[in-house]
């Protein structure tokens, strides 16, 4: 184990056991931990990307597969220059009424653009990223979607990532 592993703490270490008690076979036995990477320079000089499990995607792109019993291991690139009107949500596992009124509550594309424009953050990557988090196969999810997404984020030139679960 690394020093970082030993000094880091899981935020809610008992969570998965609780879930498993309520839903037998719920699986999620997360014993390892990937420590958060420290920010290496001021946020005002850092190019940020945004990764969301909210199922937000450009209008008319292939809808996320919300009917599949295992899940959908694909992600969508969402141009950071998008406006809420350019985007839509395909997701049935969380309430989207608020997001339908203002997408920024779940996918803050306007707010991040404002923060970039006023210099609070150094800039935005050309694309943000979105997927749907529902799955009963977290190992497969990690092997496929998470790996592909990490590669895509790195290729985008992101220096920091804002992760936002739906």
């Amino acid at each position, binding site marked *: 184990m690394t020093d970082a592993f030993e000094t880091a703490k899981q935020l809610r270490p008992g969570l998965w056991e609780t879930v498993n008690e309520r*839903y*037998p*076979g*719920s*699986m*999620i036995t997360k014993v390892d931990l990937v420590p958060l990477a420290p920010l290496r320079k001021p946020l005002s000089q850092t190019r940020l990307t945004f990764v969301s499990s909210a*199922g937000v995607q450009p209008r008319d792109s292939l*809808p996320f597969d*919300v*009917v*599949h*019993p*295992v899940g959908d291991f694909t992600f969508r690139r969402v141009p950071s220059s998008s406006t809420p009107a350019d985007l839509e*949500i*395909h*997701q*049935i*596992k*969380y*309430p*989207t*009424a608020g997001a339908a009124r203002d997408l920024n509550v779940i996918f803050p594309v306007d707010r991040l653009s404002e923060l970039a424009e006023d210099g609070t953050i150094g800039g935005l990557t050309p694309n943000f990223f979105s997927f749907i988090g529902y799955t*009963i*196969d*977290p*190992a*497969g999810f990690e092997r496929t979607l998470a790996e592909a997404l990490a590669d895509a984020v790195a290729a985008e030139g992101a220096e920091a990532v804002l992760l936002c679960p739906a």
Partner: protein
Amino acid sequence: MSIDYLRTAVAENDSATLIRYVRLHLGDGNEAAGRKEIDKAWVEALKLLLDMPSTDRTFVLETLSSRDAATLAHLFFHLHFYLVTRSGEWIHDGRL
């Protein structure tokens, strides 16, 4: 439930566990709601056929014979949600 849990259920021919998962999936975590949703889809399918409207049975048979079983199973889940949507009673939070 996990994929491993369901694979074990398949290996042990444990249909009760498998259908429980289907109900949980279709009922957004509520088994009773999922059971109702399954019934709702079948009722809607039946209602559509009671008057014996013309249907494209050639398309149906060609699809069944030309597509792999996994694609057809996937289609089955899509059809469930299609029929549930047609029923006009939508219990889910978001949209397809």
